[in-house]
């Protein structure tokens, strides 16, 4: 093989390899691991205000995981992991908490942080913190690298000790604890949120399984 032919083969190999890598990168970046977006519903009475309604379940039977709870029907879950809200808006959030709970491993998360007034309304009662030994989950939202945004919202969701049965989708639960709070969005950005109560498997400090997979106890909030 002469020198120019060798160089041509080498160049073609490099270009093909680079192209394959670029294609794989594009495919990975285009593939979203998240569910269909849950859009914030604009208020009919107040300007620049919208509402989001979420639930937390002790399993995956009533959320967006698919028929019969998807591949992990026994994993705890939020009802949706892909939230979309408008920019520069007050977002009124209602979370129906259907799961039991226990003690936080970090009492930092028993406080309500980053909400309007630094408070949440839990079953009609305004609070700024909850009992750290009786928490089901948390909704903890924060900025991501490169966005330059510093939004931080964390609200503890007390454990559900009600006994009145309710049916939602394919799931059977008890009457939920209702947690309401509001926070303000800024300009366009994508934030990440997750639960900070150790509700996954016993591995990794109970941060395995549902805590370590998209679609269950973590997700994104897109401000657009």
């Amino acid at each position: 093989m002469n020198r120019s032919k060798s160089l041509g083969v080498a160049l073609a190999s490099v270009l093909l390899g680079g192209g394959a890598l670029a294609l794989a990168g594009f495919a990975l970046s285009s593939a979203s691991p998240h569910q269909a977006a849950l859009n914030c519903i604009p208020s009919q009475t107040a300007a620049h205000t919208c509402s989001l309604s979420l639930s937390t379940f002790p399993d995956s039977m009533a959320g967006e995981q698919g028929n019969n709870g998807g591949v992990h029907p026994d994993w705890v879950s939020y009802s949706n992991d892909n939230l979309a809200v408008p920019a520069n808006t007050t977002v009124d959030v209602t979370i129906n908490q259907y799961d039991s709970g226990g003690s936080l491993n970090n009492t930092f998360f028993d406080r309500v942080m980053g909400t309007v007034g630094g408070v949440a309304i839990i079953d009609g009662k305004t609070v700024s913190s909850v009992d750290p030994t009786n928490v089901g989950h948390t909704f903890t939202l924060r900025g991501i690298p490169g966005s330059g945004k510093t939004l931080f919202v964390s609200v503890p969701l007390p454990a559900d000790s009600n006994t009145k049965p309710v049916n939602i989708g394919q799931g059977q639960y008890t009457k939920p604890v209702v947690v309401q709070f509001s926070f303000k969005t800024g300009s366009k950005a994508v934030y990440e949120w997750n639960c900070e109560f150790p509700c996954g498997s016993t591995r990794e400090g109970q941060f395995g399984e549902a805590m370590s997979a998209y679609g269950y106890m973590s997700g994104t909030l897109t401000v657009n």
Partner: protein
Amino acid sequence: MTTSNNKKSYRGLFLTWAILTIAGALVGIFGPSRLMPRSMSDNMHLTILTMVVFTVAAAPVAAGVYASALYALRHWAHKGSEVPPSGPAVRENAMFVTTWLIVSTLLTVFLLIWGLGALAVDNSSTGKNPLVVDVTGQQWVWSFSYPGTHVSSPQLYLPDNREVEFRVTSKDVTHGFWIVNMGIQVDANVGVITTIHTTPDKLGLFNIRCEQFCGLNHAFMVTVGHVLTPSQFASWLSSQPQQA
């Protein structure tokens, strides 16, 4: 090749080495302060100085390698299809081997002494009324509390020109507490408190990241910090809700 040709070639080799050494040294002197994040503490100043010194020290060695490679390509490129005869082994050149050994040893000892000294300075405390901050990593949020105040925050607030003692731990897996602009990088281990000191000396915002892969949202375990004037810091501290 004649002796005069040899001398000419070696002069070329020396010139190439000298030019590459100067280029490497210039990169070493001016590169780190421009390429690294804005320095906001004594530790970061030392880190950047170490980068400068190590790069300048490495410049003549790297230049020697590149100059030799260029020289070999220029003068020893083999033409033809026959296998060329072997040249004399380098190990038989006593002067070369001795010089190489001495220079390598001196450089290594210098880097070792500098590194140990920098590490000792990096971990030292002045003991002058340091502000203690408890740092807790938990998948995937950093939290900071100020002992004796019942104040905790998801962002880090520090006063300017006062030594800070970070007591770093984790609630679940191993995290890496990294204050990018302050040259602070220490593992956060479960059940262990690791202390590290720094003194912020620039006002403004800085970035905090996790530098140990810690699970699903490791890439999002990031927050910001603020260096405030002492009076601003006192105001911030007194305005915070007290956690029980």
